């Protein structure tokens, strides 16, 4: 019984009792002593217990699965636990440890004799060399060629010299145009004032040259240059869906449905708002693109399906140094 009482008393003392640390009168303190601040001390203790409480709440929320707003509760409990701990530490730093503002010399600016000694050690060490320049040059050659050898395997990453794939396309004469699910597009499916995405039948949809946008325009709207004047079929035009600026998909069609029906219908890329005119062969109306959209020639077969009459008039995708040097290759 007495032992229990002793324990209780010592626990109470631990919780509430205060004791000044022993001061050594016989030596000079390095950190100067300061006055007591029992209020701040108490606040620190409360904050630390709050930290523990919030941390426990985090574990509880995690363990109690299927709480609504679990992410919010987890974030709030863990965040508040950290913030309480932060507050306790900042309180200690600002109010409880003695704040000293002391002075110190900046490090010496330089060590001239040491610098001299280093240079001398290096210079003196080479006394046995008589053909220094040749030795240096040999090291240069060895280092350069060995370095080249070591970075050679990096060439395996990709075909650095082969730019042929940039001219390749997935279209050729006769390929049917299909939708995302593989269903062939009929000319009759294509209506005005909206746009459709099409792919070459049987080809990889993700390859950049595959996707095209289909748009139907009133026949008298077309102002196509001679070379591509026969690319539309029954007023339907197909353009590469990949923007010639930076390679995003052109997924906006600006087509005013009511008066005033200006500005003209245009294909727009949402990344940097390059704007292309579908009536003139995909020329740039606005935005940063430096090249017109590649146009795909079309025809309608006897059953009414849309088919490619060849491949694009220009390479697909963002420009590179060779983009204007050659025509794209049919599949």
């Amino acid at each position, binding site marked *: 019984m007495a032992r229990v009482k002793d324990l209780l008393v010592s626990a109470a003392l631990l919780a509430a009792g205060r004791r000044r640390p022993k001061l050594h009168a016989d030596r000079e303190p390095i950190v100067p002593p300061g006055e007591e601040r029992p209020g701040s001390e108490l606040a620190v203790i409360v904050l630390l217990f709050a930290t523990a409480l919030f941390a426990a709440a985090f574990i509880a929320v995690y363990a109690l699965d299927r709480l609504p707003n679990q992410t919010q509760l987890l974030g709030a409990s863990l965040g508040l636990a950290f913030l309480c701990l932060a507050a306790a530490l900042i309180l*200690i730093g600002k109010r409880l440890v003695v704040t000293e503002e002391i002075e110190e010399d900046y490090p010496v600016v330089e060590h001239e004799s040491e610098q001299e000694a280093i240079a001398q050690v290096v210079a003196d060490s080479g006394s046995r060399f008589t053909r220094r320049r040749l030795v240096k040059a040999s090291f240069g050659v060895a280092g350069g060629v060995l370095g080249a050898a070591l970075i050679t395997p990096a060439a395996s990453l*990709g075909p650095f010299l082969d730019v042929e794939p940039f001219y390749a396309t997935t279209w050729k004469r006769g390929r049917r145009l299909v939708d995302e699910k593989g269903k062939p597009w009929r000319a009759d499916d294509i209506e005005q004032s909206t746009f459709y995405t099409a792919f070459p039948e049987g080809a990889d949809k993700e390859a950049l040259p595959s996707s095209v946008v289909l748009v139907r325009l009133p026949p008298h709207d077309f102002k196509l240059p001679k070379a591509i004047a026969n690319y539309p079929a029954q007023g339907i035009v197909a353009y590469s869906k990949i923007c010639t600026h930076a390679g995003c998909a052109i997924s906006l069609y600006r087509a005013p449905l009511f008066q005033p029906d200006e500005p003209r219908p245009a294909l727009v890329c949402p990344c940097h708002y390059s704007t292309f005119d579908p009536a003139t062969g995909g020329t740039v109306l606005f935005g940063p693109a430096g090249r017109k959209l590649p146009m795909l020639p079309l025809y309608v077969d006897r059953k009414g399906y849309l088919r490619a009459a060849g491949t694009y008039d220009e390479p697909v995708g963002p420009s590179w140094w060779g983009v204007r040097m050659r025509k794209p290759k049919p599949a």
Partner: protein
Amino acid sequence: MIRKLVRFLDQRTGTAPLVRKTLRYLFPDHWSFLLGEVALYAFIVLVATGTYLALFYQDGTATVTYHGPYLPLRGQEMTEAYRSVVNISTTVKAGLLIRQTHHWAADVFVASIVLHLLRIFFTGAYRKPRELTYWIGLTILIVALLEGYLGYSMVDDLLSGMGLAIGYGVALSIPFFGSNIAAWIWGGPFPGQHEFFARMYIVHVFLIPALIAVLLAAHLGLVAMRHHTQFKASRRETERKLVGVPMFPGQAPRSLGLFFAVAGVLFLLGGLVQINPIWLWGPFHTYSSTNGAQPDWYLGWLIGALRLVPSFDLVIDGYTLVPNPFWGGVAFPGVVFTFLFLWPLMERKVTGDTAFHNVLQRPREAPWRTAIGVAMVTWVTLVFIAGGADRIDVLFDISYTAQIWAYRVLIWVGPVIAGVVAYRACIELQRGEPVEHDRERAEHEAKAAATVQDVA
């Protein structure tokens, strides 16, 4: 107890003198000196949360069909990479909290680096003997931008893919080698080989974090070797005398407190403020994109630059010398970073100042530096704001086209005006200082005289 531990360690390492010196290492006290610390703590949170995410992320690009609990995506085809991040966000307990905290930490990391850089620039803290520290810091900023870009590209949601497509377009636009470099990095034309994702993954979770850690160590080591710069707050601070709070006991609890505060705020953000809800964007396909997409804030200046350049490729006789995205995606950040790297050398060349500096300047004390710095900040900020012109169009119905034309003029006029204003402001502030001093002294004397009268 402490004595025993110290003796044990000293007898085995002999580091007692070093530790003693370190405990009394001085930190000059100013709020702006904490910005770099915030970046450091955000980095620690990034490594911790990122390690957790890496335990669940898969870098596979094989097509799979989603059968998880998130109904809108059920039955959709996607890559393993995207599915694994959807799973982290939906089925892994606490996964969404950690993912969002990681994303917020990345945004805060870059933000605090940029603010830290501004403080360093406008107070002349980069001057001799601290140029190396400055250049290493700039390198960390560049690497951090790349790290953030790879981080959100790895997810393979729709926005990731759009970002990668733009990165590919910018790589292609590099004069003479564009397609070669792109083919080398991606393994062929976009979207490239499967290995590309493995490459992004290892660079994002290992190579760059390790590089940042090494650079950080060098950065902090250099700071410690030359000690921190200080403001001239009183007569005590000089070029030779440092005034500050010792690491222990004064600074340690404050810095630790700041660390936990940063962690706390980041976890609160991660839990309470949604960021990049990738399940809404859906998987990426080369043939899809969405309107209203904005990148993380620290890439906003590049989007703005890409959008502002007028329509042209520089072509010489059929050879495309400079494709359009080069200007905004490479040349613009290239100019900004070249300026930042060369600035300490340019300033020294012009001023002929080769002295050692430990006392910082206030912006007004170096009007030319402040003016040029303000002009640069204005330039980058205007381009950054131009990147949001489409949102302004939607929110306030101001024509996008008209805005872009306005910005095309404004980004050149604005910096000049801002620079001139900043210069004048510095001069006026300098002129005002003696007046201010006199007034304060007069007031002080009047007060003292009044007190004497009262006593009498």
